[in-house]
């Protein structure tokens, strides 16, 4: 594979794989996908058993076990205190474990004429044997070194698949054409409705994947089509009434051959061995729909997993060994584990979100995918910023992306408000779909991560268009815009002298009213006469009489201001403006009006400074009188 191609690989294997002893003549390797333990059993256990945990590197167990025959299956209880080993088809042996060594064995046989197909720890002290006749549920009592039978459920089983996170077993019969999901929990078993498959359509164990997609248990069945048709994955989600499985999604792989499936961050990864590439699907993306089933195409271009290497101790120096990708030795476990038994490596497969974005050509789709990823936020913001910084971003595309972001933002706001609306005290607060809101990009994020990263000198029109698209999207989602966003837009328009645009936006209420905005508009009044009209309108809508009076007074409109004044007003303000105007009639009317108004009469008695105005008044009009008199003479 060439380098340039590897740059855009969006899947990678974990950097430090869990290393274990590779399979050889002496050593058998087992993986328990419930506890994620790797067992390396040397010579049936006599030479030692090494247990490594895939989740935490530090969990490392090393003990010896007596060899009572070849091991078929070996699993610790969830608390790692009891080890269960299956060596034959009709019994399972148990050994208590104190952290360093095993206690003596005790055993449990299954019902007569049954063959144990496998066993699962459904709870700390609870174990289920899956036999060809059904499920036998036992409670393990380690102190007494015995087991107590709890329940038997009968069913015909040829093989089964277990999903520990959902405590769900899928029992297959009739060559995999009958698939029965059973929940094993709290000492009971609960049969669900059969998975609705096309009659007679068989499935192999390796074609079944049990997973949890966006919080819902799901059964994924790989369907190889006859003839030239490409394979499909049918996703049956257990969200029907009573958790009955519903075929809700079909993933169109577009290829034939051998596949393996992983789930990472609710994305379905389908590895294709022949082409040595993987494609991804996100069932949350909109897709072709026939009313019940959605038909998905891959969310991104098919790409190989990033090349991985491990260091092997060499004779002199450590050697770097490039691992073979999509090797036939690979075994895939859920949700995101790949094991190469020959190499002795266990990897977690990871999504590289930035690279993934580069493989999704459409920004709108990319936004939707990122919004659903746990670590998607910073990546999404970077992708948006990169798109915006292009020479000619498409603003209609951006707006649709903003819509996707803001639908989630709105749901979040609504969910936040929900508890205040008043639910009955006993009612459980259902965080409905909250698990879907992995990425919340609010207005502050947009402000800090996008708008402020643009050059306010060079990108002025871009900022205007952008903030407008964002504003329109907020309005589409009925979210009120924060002041800093409107301020940005208004200053942006003012700096481009686009007052007509501003005027129209205010006229149609596209910009929300606020006192700070009104003040900003007032300060723009000297650049455009319309700005002060808009400011006054805005103040009037907020019924800010005080501020309106100030504006009118500063404009010298004493009478208009006086009409708005109530009894809390300060007479001095009006009088001083009237006096400064030099208009004697105005001064006269204002003074007489205030003096004769009972609301203010009291103030004239108390306030020394108001008396000065009366003094002033008398001087003015006395002087006039005198001059009149002189005229008359």
């Amino acid at each position, binding site marked *: 594979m060439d380098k340039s191609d590897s740059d855009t690989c969006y899947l990678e294997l974990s950097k430090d794989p869990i290393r274990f002893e590779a399979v050889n003549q002496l050593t058998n390797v087992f993986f328990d996908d419930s506890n994620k333990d790797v067992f390396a059993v040397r010579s049936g256990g006599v030479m030692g058993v090494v247990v490594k945990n895939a989740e935490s590197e530090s969990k490392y167990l090393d003990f010896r076990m007596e060899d009572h025959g070849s091991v078929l299956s070996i699993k610790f209880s969830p608390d790692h205190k009891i080890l269960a080993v299956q060596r034959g088809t009709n019994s399972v042996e148990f050994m208590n474990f104190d952290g360093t060594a095993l206690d003596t064995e005790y055993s449990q046989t299954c019902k007569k004429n049954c063959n144990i197909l496998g066993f699962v720890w459904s709870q700390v002290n609870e174990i289920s044997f899956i036999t060809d006749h059904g499920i036998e549920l036992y409670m393990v009592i380690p102190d007494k070194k015995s087991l107590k039978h709890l329940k038997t459920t009968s069913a015909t089983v040829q093989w089964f698949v277990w999903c520990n996170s959902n405590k769900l077993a899928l029992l297959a019969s009739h060559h995999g054409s009958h698939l029965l999901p059973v929940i094993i929990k709290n000492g009971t078993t609960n049969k669900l409705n059969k998975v609705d498959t096309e009659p007679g359509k068989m499935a192999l164990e390796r074609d079944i994947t049990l997973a949890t997609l966006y919080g819902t248990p799901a059964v994924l069945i790989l369907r190889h089509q006859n003839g030239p048709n490409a394979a499909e994955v049918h996703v049956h989600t257990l969200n029907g009434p009573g958790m009955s499985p519903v075929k809700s999604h079909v993933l169109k792989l577009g290829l034939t051959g051998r596949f393996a499936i992983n789930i990472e961050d609710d994305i379905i990864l389908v590895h294709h061995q022949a082409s040595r590439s993987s494609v991804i699907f996100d069932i949350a993306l909109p897709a072709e729909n026939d009313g019940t089933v959605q038909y998905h195409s891959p969310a991104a271009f098919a790409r190989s997993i990033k090349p991985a290497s491990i260091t092997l101790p060499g004779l002199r120096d450590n050697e770097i060994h490039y691992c073979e990708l999509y090797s036939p030795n690979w075994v895939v476990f859920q949700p995101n584990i790949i094991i190469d038994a020959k190499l002795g490596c266990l990897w977690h497969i990871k999504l590289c979100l930035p690279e993934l974005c580069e493989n999704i050509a459409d920004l709108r789709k990319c936004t939707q995918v990122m919004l659903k990823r746990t670590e998607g936020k910073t990546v999404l913001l970077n992708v948006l910023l990169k798109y915006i910084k292009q020479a*000619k971003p498409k*603003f209609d595309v951006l707006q649709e992306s903003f819509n996707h972001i803001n639908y989630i933002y709105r749901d979040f706001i609504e969910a936040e408000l929900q508890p205040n609306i008043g639910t009955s005290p006993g009612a459980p607060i259902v965080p409905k779909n909250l698990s879907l809101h992995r990425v919340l990009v609010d207005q502050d994020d947009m402000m800090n991560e996008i708008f402020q990263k643009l050059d306010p000198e060079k990108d002025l029109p871009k900022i205007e268009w952008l903030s*407008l698209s964002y504003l329109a999207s907020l*309005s589409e989602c009925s979210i009120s815009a924060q002041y800093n966003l409107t301020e940005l837009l208004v200053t942006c328009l003012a700096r481009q002298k686009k007052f*007509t645009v501003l*005027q129209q*936006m205010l006229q149609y209420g596209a910009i929300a009213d606020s006192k700070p905005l009104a003040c900003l508009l007032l300060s723009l009044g000297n650049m455009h006469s319309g700005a002060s009209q808009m400011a*006054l309108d805005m103040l009037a809508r907020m019924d800010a009489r005080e501020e309106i009076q100030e504006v009118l007074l500063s404009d010298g409109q004493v009478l*208009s201001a006086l*009409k708005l004044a109530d009894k809390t007003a300060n007479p001095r303000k009006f009088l001083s403006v009237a006096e400064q105007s030099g208009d004697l009639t105005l001064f006269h009317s204002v003074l007489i009006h205030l003096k004769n108004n009972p609301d203010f009469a009291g103030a004239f008695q108390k306030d020394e400074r108001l008396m000065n105005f009366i003094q002033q008044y008398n001087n003015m009009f006395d002087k006039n009188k005198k001059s009149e008199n002189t005229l008359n003479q």
Partner: protein
Amino acid sequence: MVTQIIAGLKNFFIFKSSLGANEGEELKKILYYYPLTDNTDVQIKNVGFVEGIIQFTDTFKPSSHVNSLHTNKTRHLYYQPEKDFWMVMVLKLNRSTKEKEISNDTEDLEDDIEDNVYEALLKQAYLMYRLFWGTFKDAKNTDSLKMTLEVFYRAYLQTIKLANADVLNMFSGIQYLPVDKHCFLKVQTFVNCLESSYDFIENASFLYNDYLIWSGIEPSDMQVVYQYLVGTLLPANVETELLGGSMPRNSTSPFAPLRHGRFITGPSNLKSAKTIGKVPKVYLFASGKSQEYHLVVYRALSATVCLFIKGDTELTLDLFKTLDEDLNTKLLCIVSDIADYCSKQIITPNLSDSSPRYIYFNNVNLAYSSNVHLDNKQSGNLACPKESVRIATEMKGNLPFLGPAGETIVKTMNDFWVVMKTSNHRECYIALQQKNASLIGISEEVKRLCDTELKGIFFKQI
């Protein structure tokens, strides 16, 4: 009562006073003269008379030129749009038969015809010319100026509706469509999208029927463009649309996607067009200097998009085709949204005869609305007596004396009250019919009306 009516346009001429200063060369001054039937002697005489009046009156008041001249049988209106250029309109007056006996009562006659309305008409005539041909002084030479004036005004003078001119001509305002912010933001983002994706589109405006929703250009320019669109271009096109029937008949296949949009200026049929058709050039002046644009008008359903394309852009058929693709799809969804909103908003207007009539005008965005005028064709179809509108016109003339805010109330002989309020750069004229009403009652009534009709702006309080 004495009434005086306008019988028609007697003369309309444009001259440049700095030309033909020498005796015997007076004809050179005249750039355009109507009617053509007047021989050159009459033309020279009339122009000379006007020039004389102007020069004579200038000696008394050099700060402002004379605006009008009243004679018994005519009314002269003078307007100097640019230095040395004068536009003159002479109206013929007729007295109605019954007041012939008291014809000596000239004082009454004075008030019947408002000079300022006709001044506004004259100014509008200039602005409309300037929109298409630029300023007089920017013309290449006198001969080409004479030619363009001739071409323009010969057609334009036919469209002037002298008899029904009223206060609306003084506003020459714009009617905005009251839509909610969702619709508005849709329109605005649509326009932004156009401007950002096509470099050559400098500005765009968006109309729905006769109403403006978005204007990318300054109101002072928009008002002229709006008059042209609503007054001339769109009515002509609606007529042709109606002639074609509601379904397009020229579609070649019934399965071809129905296209709703088409260019009104530019190629009329994109499939068959060989040339780009006629695209007018317009000149806008709001920026302080003259800027040249191609005015491309696209219409889909009831929406009209005006694109102001930079004057130096070469218009090609391909360019129109790409625009058509883009506009057609995007417009349809916006138009349906606006139509949805409008259909929800329709409230049966309370049009009983006694209900108050108003004309509202905002000086900042030049918006007007009126329930006095029953259509916007200036057909003289009024919902209140013509006299009330005339009073409003007179009030408008007295506006400068009121200052930034004020109110005037007038009671007519036939129990009509006309109220004018102005504040915060807005004007509102209200006509009420109330018998035996007091001044306080009317004042209260107006206050109540303003409270309900003019919500959300700073106007009602004063």
